[in-house]
């Protein structure tokens, strides 16, 4: 009996060996909070909670599986994975569906969002390429890396999906940043962005995107139209106060004043029901996750793992700042979910998979680097 228990315990220990328990606890806390808020925001129905729970389970399975893959195998498979994930990205342009463009491929069982895969394979590819060159990267290397970032980004923009494209760019840019990219590049990027903004305004942006930016600049200009979402969201957040209205007591979401309150605006529901305390707790958890990823990256022995783990951690931060800023009127409206809180499958799975890679970095330290 004892022996069986010990055997079981050892089996579990071996199976879970690759997991980083600190990261796991923080992620589990976020997911638990996410499910609790979702239960309230979804009108106290368990349907959404169960569906989301299933996605978390799937994501966690992916996390566990990826954490068991040694980083050198991952590194070796990187170029192939990168190219392979570009295929559905092309496919979605032909057969995709979605509200504002062609974002999803209907797989029968669920909708699959190919762009989500790039959130993982793009930083992998960038890290793979940069790691194969001496760092800090030379001019030509930077150009190639930018090319690696540019191809999928352009495909995602064609869908068009500005939010995901931005996250994908960010995850690639973080690799360059962590690889020691010269500050001149950042200055040049900022300058280029400023110069490109007017051009983008006239040729690139769709009318609904322009509306979002105009609304961000002045939400009161159309309080019943485009500005409505942000005004109601700010009311929800502000009405939460220090301690919140209480779980299930958020009138803004329960009376449908708050739009999209199970997805993009779920953090506003949390803010309304749990107040600034709840916000502070959740932001602290995110900070911990990001910090832990960077720590794991810094401890890694090879360049590829470092760059990958670091950029994945920083990418999570982008979600938080963009979503949290958008729903509180600090940034224009961009369709970026709050990681692990917003209802929706693909982003949760891809985020957890990314965390799995980070854990793999921690678990599989090669004896010697390149």
């Amino acid at each position: 009996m004892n022996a069986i228990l010990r055997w079981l315990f050892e089996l579990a220990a071996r199976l879970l060996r690759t997991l980083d328990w600190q990261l796991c606890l923080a992620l589990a806390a976020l997911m638990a909070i996410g499910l609790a808020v979702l239960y309230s925001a979804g009108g106290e129905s368990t349907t959404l909670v169960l569906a989301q729970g299933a996605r978390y389970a799937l994501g966690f399975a992916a996390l566990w599986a990826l954490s068991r893959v040694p980083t050198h195998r991952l590194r070796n498979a990187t170029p192939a994975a990168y190219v392979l994930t570009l295929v559905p990205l092309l496919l979605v342009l032909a057969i995709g569906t979605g509200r504002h463009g062609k974002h999803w491929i209907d797989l029968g069982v669920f909708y699959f969002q190919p762009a989500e895969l790039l959130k993982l394979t793009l930083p992998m590819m960038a890290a793979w390429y940069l790691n194969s060159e001496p760092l800090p990267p030379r001019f030509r290397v930077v150009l190639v890396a930018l090319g690696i970032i540019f191809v999928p980004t352009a495909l995602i923009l064609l869908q068009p999906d500005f939010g995901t494209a931005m996250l994908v760019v960010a995850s690639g840019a973080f690799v360059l940043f962590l690889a020691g990219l010269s500050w001149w590049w950042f200055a040049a990027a900022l300058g280029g962005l400023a110069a490109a903004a007017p051009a983008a305004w006239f040729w690139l942006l769709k009318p609904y995107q322009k509306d979002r930016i105009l609304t961000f600049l002045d939400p009161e200009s159309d309080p019943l139209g485009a500005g409505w979402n942000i005004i109601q969201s700010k009311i929800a957040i502000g009405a939460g106060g220090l301690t919140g209205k209480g779980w299930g007591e958020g009138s803004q979401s329960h009376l449908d004043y708050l739009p999209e309150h199970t997805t993009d605006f779920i953090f506003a529901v949390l803010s309304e029901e749990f107040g600034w305390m709840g916000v502070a707790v959740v932001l602290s958890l995110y900070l911990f996750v990001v910090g832990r990823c960077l720590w794991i990256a810094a401890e890694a022995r090879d360049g590829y793992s470092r760059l990958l783990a670091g950029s994945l951690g920083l990418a999570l931060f982008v979600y938080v700042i963009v979503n949290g800023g958008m729903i509180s009127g600090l940034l224009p409206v961009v369709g970026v979910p709050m990681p692990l809180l917003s209802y929706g499958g693909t982003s949760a799975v891809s985020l957890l998979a990314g965390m799995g890679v980070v854990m793999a970095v921690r678990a599989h330290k090669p004896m010697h680097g390149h």
Partner: protein
Amino acid sequence: MRPRRRQLKSPAAEASQFRRRALLGFVLVVLALGGLGGWYYKLQVLDHAAYALQSEANRLKLRPVLPGRGLILDRKGRVLADNVPAYRLDVTPIDAGPPADWLPELRRIVALDEEDIADFQEAHRTGARFRPITLKPRVEPEEVARFAVDRWRFPGVELVPYLNRRYPHGPLLAHIIGYVGRVDEEDLKALGEADSAFTHVGKAGIERYYDDILRGRIGYEQVETNVEGRSLGTVGRVPAVPGTDIKLSIDLDLQRAMVAAFGDFDGSAVAVDPRTGEILAMVSLPSYDPNLFVNGISHTAYRALTSNPSRPLFNRNVLGGGPPGSTVKPFVGLAGLDSGLRTPQDKVLSTGEFHIPGQRRGYRDSHAHGHGWTDLRKSIAESVNTYYYQLALDMGIEAFAKWMHRYGFGERTGIDLVGENTGIVPSAEWKRAHRREPWYTGETVIAGIGQGFWKATALQLVRATSALADEGALRRLHLARERRDGYEAPWRAFPQPAPERISDNPAHIQAVREGMEMTMQPGGTAWYAAGRDLPYPMAGKTGTAQKVSRRGAVSVDPHQLPLALRHQAWFIGYAPADAPTIAVAVAVEHGGFGSSTAAPIARAVMDAWILGKRPQAPAVEDDTVSFDNVAGQVR
């Protein structure tokens, strides 16, 4: 190439560079998340009060609860104005979308005329998109049923139940009750913020005069509403206070009898209880159907009313008036007695023509050869002009005007209707002010027989007549008798001011009254028309006010002549003469002489009141309301 690059790659340097960058990244993350947390702190803690307020404003809506408008009853408690459940069709533009998408479909289910649609389009262009616009104010029951089946096809189009004001007797009481109408910009200003939820206010008649008590007080429900405005439950409630019920002194049967007595004539009449000043019946003919105005009258119906030369919308009693003719003689006679210029026995010789000393122009009597020696009583009974020519001349126009004002001429009767006309008592002062001309003695002479610059209403005449009937007490005329504030509350009388006295000498009034009684007796001007077979003693006075002289036998349809050109046949009277319970004034437009048309109307009214005689003709059988009733036809 490759080996060279290997040499250049320095793991230790790269690792330390990575750590620097990772640390820098982490610092930036801390700063950014800290900034985000700070921004949320500002929203949630520093600005909490403002957002909490907005959130509450979102959640709880004050929904006004309209009170039921007070009923209007006749003196016996019969309903003259009530509220009936009805439906209107409201459209919320933001939900309904462009009218082209649903309007053609909707027209197949609900009858909509071009006017409704034009009004709607106008409101749709100019109004707020989230505020409902009324497309059709009254939806028929079959349409309600049809729409209910198909309502899912018309988002934003809603059947709204409400209480509709109804005047079951239609035109019969239009000039008394008036009507309510939809609140317009001006009304909104007058109502103020607190009462802005009222949809209808009294626009005319009793409905207008007593609007502040009839409409009641708006109540409020604090309702939790979701974003679509759907109510999820009531949180708090301030009940509406229903409007005050008003019992008029009008007697519905007498009103009917009065209208019936007019037959085909235009004109006005008022019957009053001389003991109280209560108006028992009051008509201004032709009339109109007030139900047409409740939810906005159509342009065609309104044009029909306004283009009618008999002016159905014009309340002759309140706004009209004309020379009273010989009906002022009892009062001029009383003035002669009270001023000391005459005793009841003093006689004047009527020769058929009266001359102002030193003037050539003659003023005629109704008998070409005169009435002979005439005292006060005879002057009234036979309507002897010369008696009054001389009396007015002796009195002088200033004293004359003063006495006439004492009898209520040129003064408001105090009737509870808006806009009462004071009329005109001729005086040098009035003529100077309004005509910028000097006064001529001849005008004093004709003022004595109620001609010239006179303007009196039937209300003023009946009030003065009532004063004679009630021993000189000149009372405020009024329609509203009692009020009831809530169904359970007791009826309370409206307070009335104390009467004024028109004469200090009962013997003088008695003399005048005897003259008026003689009018109804053989030899009197109204004997043949109204005085024969009187089962009760009656007193009266006839009068005729000619506005244009009728030459030859040109027959004119009186209904087509403009009001200003119509001459009026007058009659005033009261009965029973010894203990009067009713006083009447009748003005018949184009009604020949006062004796022939006005007196029989007064007699019929008195018969109805005193003997309970109902009109035989089915004149006002159809006084239940039908909405396709065309305005101004029903008499």
